[in-house]
């Protein structure tokens, strides 16, 4: 019998999709500012990029607040090594043999161990690096004349910011692939991210806790 299980709370869905929009816009405008192509023109691209940066930082503050107050931050607690190995084994071999996914998604544990590690890396490393270097980029004039800051140049800030942006884009590529193609039923993750619910097939997962 089919039953619907609640996977993503309203805020999580809002957070995910507003991040999707903002990150997409920022990647497009960011790489234009970097000089990869001409689309909006530098002036527009820079204006849109700075504006969306503030929105994303605002969203980030909300998200941290939400995760800390709801305890949802625990979703990102790294798993035991053997669980990660199980995921690597699954993606690397078992998936080709048609074996079942080693973990089952449920509200209290919606991320698989590898996913959890990737998101943790995204939220505590890549994103903060982008935000901090981005703010340094925006406020260049304020710190560049301070003697104590002479070790840092705009070039270095740009270097860090751009490097993190490449990682972000790589994340998006892999994330899209995994999110869109790994479902037992096509696009059920996408549907879950929109409605919040996933239809549970009732099949027993390979291993649970």
């Amino acid at each position, binding site marked *: 019998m089919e039953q619907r299980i609640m996977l993503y709370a309203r805020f999580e869905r809002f957070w995910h999709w507003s991040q999707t929009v903002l990150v997409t816009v920022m990647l497009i405008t960011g790489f*234009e*500012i*970097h*000089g990869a192509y*001409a689309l909006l*023109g*530098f*002036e527009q691209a*820079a*204006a849109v990029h*700075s504006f969306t940066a503030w929105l994303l930082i605002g969203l980030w503050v909300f998200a941290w607040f939400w995760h800390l107050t709801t305890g949802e931050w625990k979703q990102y607690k790294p798993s035991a090594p053997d669980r990660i190995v199980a995921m690597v084994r699954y*993606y690397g071999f078992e*998936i*080709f*043999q*048609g074996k079942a996914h080693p973990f089952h998604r449920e509200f209290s544990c919606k991320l698989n161990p590898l996913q959890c590690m990737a998101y943790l890396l995204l939220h505590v490393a890549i994103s903060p690096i982008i935000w901090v270097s981005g703010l340094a980029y*925006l406020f*260049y*004039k304020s710190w*560049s*004349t301070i003697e104590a800051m002479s070790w840092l*140049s*705009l*070039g270095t800030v*740009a*270097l860090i910011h*751009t*490097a993190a*942006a*490449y*990682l972000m*884009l*790589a994340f998006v*590529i*892999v994330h899209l*692939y995994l999110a869109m*193609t790994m479902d*037992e039923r096509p696009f059920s993750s996408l549907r879950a991210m929109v409605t919040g619910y996933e239809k549970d097939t009732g099949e027993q997962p390979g291993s649970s806790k």
Partner: protein
Amino acid sequence: MTKIILQYCIPLLLSLAVVTATYAKAEEEPATGQLEEDVKEVPKTSTADHTLFKELQKDFKTGPEVTKACLGCHNAASKQLHQTTHWTWAYDNELTGQMLGKKNVVNNFCVATASNWARCTSCHIGYGWKDAKFDLKAEDNVDCLVCHETTGTYKKFPTAAGHPNYEPKMWPPKKGKVWPPPDLKKIAQSVGAPTRESCGACHFYGGGGDGVKHGHLDSSMKNPSKELDVHMDAAGLNFSCQTCHTAGGHEIAGSKYALKASDDRGIVIPGQPDQARASCESCHGSAPHPEEADPHLNDHTLKLACVTCHVPEYARGGRKTKMWWDWSTAGKKDEKGKPVVIKDEQGYDTYHFKKGDFTWEANVVPEYYWFDGEIEYSLLEDKIDDTSVVPINKIKGSYDDEKARIWPFKVMRGRQPYDAENKIFGVPHLFGKDDEAYWKSFDWDKALRAGLRERGYEYSGEHGFVETEYYWPVTHMVAPAKNSLTCDACHSENGRLQNLAGVYIPGQSRFAWLDILGVFILIASLGAVVVHGFGRYLASRTRGGKS
């Protein structure tokens, strides 16, 4: 549904209509206090009508006679002028310790004033500087009229050492127009504050012709349009030169020898000790862009001069400026023995037997360099390195220099004669009726011997031609904001500042290795995803369609 429409939409529409109607009515009503009626004729700033002075109702024979009359009332004027670079043609640069000024520097136009006095000093604010013995203390020799007359009919004759022609005379000699002698009485009575035309009489024609030298000062600046110069716009702000080049006691602010690369005094207000306004910042401050503009525009003032963006091109007024002057080809005659002159379609000389080859350009994109205001000249006493391009002047500054800004420059390049054995600049004696003058005998050795002798140097007898470059900061022809450079001019792959060292310019600067690494990571991710997906597809097919 109908109820909703009746309850909300109709009242809303009605109120909208009322508001629109009221607003439209307000637009039609004439504004109180019509502008045209308010505008009164601007009172003249002078309190004296010079046509009424007895002293000026004379038939003056010469310029110095007029000066004597001026000094009768303005008794300190000549003494003041004697202190200025306009008069001395000497400038003591305290920053570098170099003695500069037209008397001392060498350039790559007509090279040097020494031994060519009577020709060069047609742009001196005095009368009679025809040789090195000119009396720099004589008060009557100051030319008041060249700056202060307002009829536009007073002209110093090109070869008369600063005097106008007192008899009808032809220029250019033998084949030009006859210059009538000026009506000195009328001219003397016309005196007033200098106009753009007064200053332009010399400064528009530096280097021997309209627009030749500066490129951002030429006769189009007499009555410029708003597009050409937003401040001097004849139909708009209509600034005179001294609106910015503030003058007091005949000392005029703003020197090209000691330029301020950045001005941190803030907006100059009365009471401040230094009232000079010859910088953009002295009126606009260092955060000139308005609140509603992108805040990052003002960040640029940290490293950019205002003119870098606001003078997108120079020589925009329909006149060309000289960019290249090669003296080494001068002196050619055609098969019939006739001296060669070649002109382009617009009538600009591209070759002249007296001067060599030229190139001219209009609407020129400046070259950009770091500049902190310090300029070091190569002077006659300096040995030059003839194995490479010799800088007439070197501009100092770098990214790390707090005072330095990125500035636009006209770089005048050319080839000019030098003493090949002593390795010093040549001073060619060009002008004169004597046999040593180059424009008489076309003999470089004679000309260089005479020229160097005039400056106290002995010529080795061996001449050559060396390539030189001369850096001229571009400061005029400030375009209206809408025509200033857009971001993409610099923030793009082949942006205007691509050759500048030390500065990271988003959109233009790159860390090549980062981009290679970044693209590699992207390709690797994409590749991994494609290979993985394809592998799954193949595997599921082998298993017989079971996903």
